[in-house]
Each structure stands twice: as structure tokens, then as C-alpha cells.
């Protein structure tokens, strides 16, 4: 059993240390502040703009102009999400590969994107629609460019009193040219043979299905159960997030109910696996060890941090806690999903970070719908009941262990 676990651990570590995964994760994390600012603008807008008192106090002209400002703010957020991720990804990947001119990789990647897409539609691929293609173009163009740049026969050396920057870019001229020709020929050939643009094929065959599947209840179940299972065996699922976050963020922009904010709010109540109910259950428990742990973990749970519970109860490697840990979140997902679907609450539409405190995240994430806070409290209460039941069982297991240890002593 230990050997299987170790094998699993080394595979997980290899994946999460993989250069592309690390670069993608870091690139996405870097642009989240922009998305949050734009999202916050949307949030303020959706509270102020429909409000009658604002119209009365400031007049229609003000409201129209204010709305225009919010739209402009959004242009710097989701509307350029894929473009910014693409540039950062080539830069970060180049740095990880220890290439000394990462800035040139960015230029090569941007050029490759513009070469691959018909000019009049290229801006539509700056937003979430172009996410997959931006990531793939970035990885391919950057990796190929770095490989080619190492081939000495491609390096053009010019002599004379010329600035270093010019010398550097001339040296790589041939490598750049090869990349640009490859992309131009490649995408032209796809168009010639299939009649469709490469970028549209990629979107319909790969991205739309991937996003569509992840944004279903089944997809959400799968994602969260993979994350919880990894935590259960002591592995941090950061590489799952590297894949899931771009997909769910795209889902957010495309208006799905299940999206990044949905996963953050309903899948992370008190921490991954919805452990806020557990912290409460421990807090009110009569056992002194449980009570102490509850006191320690409750304040942290309000900020969606649950490491004291995962490692301290523990939840990890503790089969008494496996069932609630794996299945409470899918239950919460189901209730929250249908609540939004039948219109009991508004869906999550504003991007927030997972660390936004409990209860507040449901309010801000839904652009100010208080009913989501009530739903949140109801789910906490439901989870509290379920966790209490399993805690009781675990308490008995501990008592039995102590008894047996006492008898042996």
C-alpha cells in the first residue's frame, strides 16, 4: 500500500513540477487581479445601475455614462484574458527553460497568433473564446523557438558597431522566420484542406466540449472528488487547478451556472471539501480534543483554510472521514445548482478569489444577491448535521483505540 502511495506521490509531484503546468498556473494567477477588478466593477455596476434611487438622484445621462465606464473597465479584464495569459505563458515558460531572451518569445507568440487567425476576427480570440488556442499557440511557438535558437547553424552573426539588442534579434532572425512560416503554412493548409479555420476547429472540437463538460454537474463532481481524493492521500492538488481554473473561468464568461466562482463558493465552504460544517461540529462537541481542534480551525474556516482539519483531525488517511469528505460537496453542488437553475437564487457571475471569506463570497460572487447568503447558511447547517454524525463515529473509533492501548499497557 505504501509503495502504491509513493508511486502516486512521485507522479503527482512530476506533474505539478512540469514546466508547462507551473508556467500556466503562474500566468493565470498573475492575471486574476485584473479579472477581479473588472469583476468588482461589474458587481458595483449591477447594484447601482438598476437601482431606482440612483436614476432619480443622478439622472439617466449619468447612469448611461457610468455604464459606459463599467464596460470600459471590463475591456481590461475578461475581454483580454486569453491574450494576457498567452503572453505571460510564453514569458514564464521561457524563463523556466532558462532561455535568456523571454521577451522575444512573447513577440514570436503574439505574431504566431495573428498569423493563425484571420485579421478581422482575431480580437474575438483575446477573451475566453480563444483560451485553448492561445495556450496551445504559446506552448508550441515558445518551445519550437527556443529549440531552434539553440541550433547554431541558424544563428546569423553580423559584425560592426551595432547595439546588443539588434545583434541579439538578428541572431535569432532565422529561427523567428521559420516559426512564422510554419504557422502561416500550417494554418493555411488546414483551411485549404478542411475548409475551416484552424482556430474554429480547435474551439468546436476541443474547447467547447471541454468547457461544456466541466461546467456540468457531473464535471463539477469529478473535479471536486479528484481534488478531495488527492488531499485525502496528502497530495496538494495544485496541478488540477492549473487545468480546471482556465476552463471554469471560460465557463464564467460564457454564462454557465457552474463556473469558477460556483466552484470557489460552493466547493470551498470553509476549505476544499466544505469543512466549515466540520469545524462547527467539532467546536460544539463534548470531547476536549475535538473542541480544541474546533476552536483552532473555526476562525481559519471563515477564510476557507482547512489545513488544521485535513492534517490535524486528521481527514487525510482517515477512513472514518472519507465518505463525508468526498460526498458532502457534491451534495452542496447539487442543491446550489438547482437553486440557481430554477431561479431561487441568482447564479454566480462575478470572479472572486477562493480566499474571499465565507458567506461574503456568496454575496459578492452573485453580484449582490442576498438569497445566496441564506442558501450558504442553509448548506452550512445541513453539512453540520452530516459531519456531526460522522464525528460521533470517529470519536467512538478513537475511544476504542484508547481502550485497546490501555489494555495492552
Amino acid at each position, binding site marked *: 500500500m505504501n509503495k502504491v502511495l509513493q508511486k502516486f*506521490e512521485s507522479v503527482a*509531484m512530476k506533474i505539478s513540477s512540469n514546466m508547462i503546468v507551473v508556467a500556466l498556473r503562474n500566468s493565470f494567477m498573475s492575471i486574476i487581479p485584473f479579472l477581479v477588478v473588472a469583476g468588482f466593477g461589474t458587481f458595483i455596476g449591477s447594484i447601482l445601475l438598476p437601482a431606482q434611487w440612483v436614476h432619480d438622484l443622478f439622472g439617466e445621462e449619468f447612469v448611461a455614462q457610468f455604464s459606459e465606464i463599467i464596460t470600459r473597465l471590463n475591456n481590461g479584464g475578461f475581454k483580454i484574458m486569453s491574450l494576457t495569459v498567452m503572453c505571460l505563458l510564453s514569458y514564464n515558460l521561457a524563463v523556466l527553460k532558462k532561455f535568456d531572451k523571454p521577451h522575444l518569445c512573447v513577440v514570436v507568440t503574439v505574431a504566431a497568433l495573428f498569423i493563425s487567425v484571420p485579421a478581422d476576427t482575431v480580437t474575438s480570440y483575446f477573451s475566453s473564446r480563444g483560451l485553448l488556442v492561445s495556450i496551445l499557440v504559446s506552448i508550441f511557438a515558445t518551445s519550437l523557438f527556443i529549440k531552434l535558437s539553440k541550433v547554431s547553424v541558424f544563428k546569423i552573426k553580423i559584425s560592426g558597431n551595432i547595439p546588443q539588442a539588434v545583434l541579439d534579434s538578428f541572431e535569432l532572425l532565422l529561427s523567428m522566420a521559420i516559426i512564422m512560416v510554419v504557422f502561416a503554412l500550417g494554418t493555411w493548409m488546414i483551411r485549404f484542406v478542411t475548409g475551416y479555420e484552424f482556430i474554429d476547429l480547435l474551439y468546436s472540437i476541443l474547447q467547447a466540449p471541454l468547457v461544456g463538460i466541466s461546467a456540468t454537474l457531473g464535471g463539477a463532481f469529478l473535479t471536486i472528488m479528484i481534488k478531495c481524493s488527492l488531499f485525502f492521500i*496528502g497530495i*496538494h492538488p495544485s496541478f488540477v487547478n492549473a487545468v480546471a481554473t482556465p476552463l471554469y473561468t471560460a465557463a464564467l464568461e460564457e454564462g454557465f451556472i457552474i463556473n469558477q466562482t460556483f466552484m470557489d463558493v460552493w466547493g470551498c465552504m470553509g476549505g476544499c471539501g466544505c469543512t466549515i460544517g466540520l469545524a462547527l461540529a467539532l467546536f460544539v462537541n463534548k470531547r476536549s480534543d475535538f473542541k480544541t481542534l474546533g476552536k*483552532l480551525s473555526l476562525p481559519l474556516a471563515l477564510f476557507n*483554510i482547512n489545513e*488544521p482539519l485535513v492534517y490535524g*483531525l*486528521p481527514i*487525510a488517511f482517515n477512513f472514518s472521514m472519507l465518505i463525508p469528505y468526498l460526498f458532502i460537496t457534491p451534495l452542496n453542488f447539487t442543491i446550489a445548482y438547482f437553486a440557481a437553475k430554477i431561479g431561487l437564487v441568482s447564479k454566480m457571475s462575478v470572479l472572486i478569489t477562493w480566499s474571499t471569506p465565507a458567506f461574503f463570497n456568496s454575496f459578492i460572487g452573485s453580484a449582490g444577491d442576498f438569497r445566496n447568503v441564506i442558501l450558504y447558511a442553509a448548506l452550512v447547517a445541513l453539512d453540520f448535521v452530516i459531519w456531526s454524525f460522522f464525528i460521533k463515529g470517529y470519536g467512538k473509533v478513537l475511544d476504542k483505540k484508547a481502550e485497546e492501548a490501555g489494555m495492552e499497557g
Partner: protein
Amino acid sequence: MKIVLYCQYGMSTSVLVSKMKKAGDSCDIIDAYPIEDVEATLNKYDVALLGPQVRGHYANTKAYADTQGVPCLLMDMMSYGRMDGRGIYLQAKKAVLDK
């Protein structure tokens, strides 16, 4: 004694650091960093401790720590979870004394 802790992002570990400082001497230096910063920081300390979330990195980190002559341990999972500052402080102290 100079102790360094490594974990995923450094958030819950900072609570542990303050509890360890309470258990230790006022002249101890106890810092926490994300696991990516190992090579930049490890050789400034007397002992390195890894959080359970970064267990997968233990083999590599220990190999590097051995080249620097710094003992490197994995923190006990439940002591970390229960934020047992005193227990982990003593674990670190023992490793330095055993060196």
C-alpha cells in the same frame, strides 16, 4: 537556533511559526517560505522542516539539504494540523542537537 519551514503558500504555516516562537527562546529565528524558495534560502538556517502538503518534495529537498550540511525533516502530520508549536519546535531542536 535558526529554523526554516517550507510549505505550499506559507499561509497556515505562519500560524505555526508564531506558536513555535512562543515555545522557543527569544533569540531563535523562525521563518516560513514556499517550497519553491528552498535553494535560495535553505543554507542560511540550522534546520529545515517540510509541511505535510509538500511531502512529495521531501526526497529532493533532503538531498539538497545534505549537500549543505543542514538537517531536513518532515513535520509530523497531526502536530502540524493541530498547530502544536511546542512539539515541532522540540522536533527541530532534537535534529540540530543530533547533528
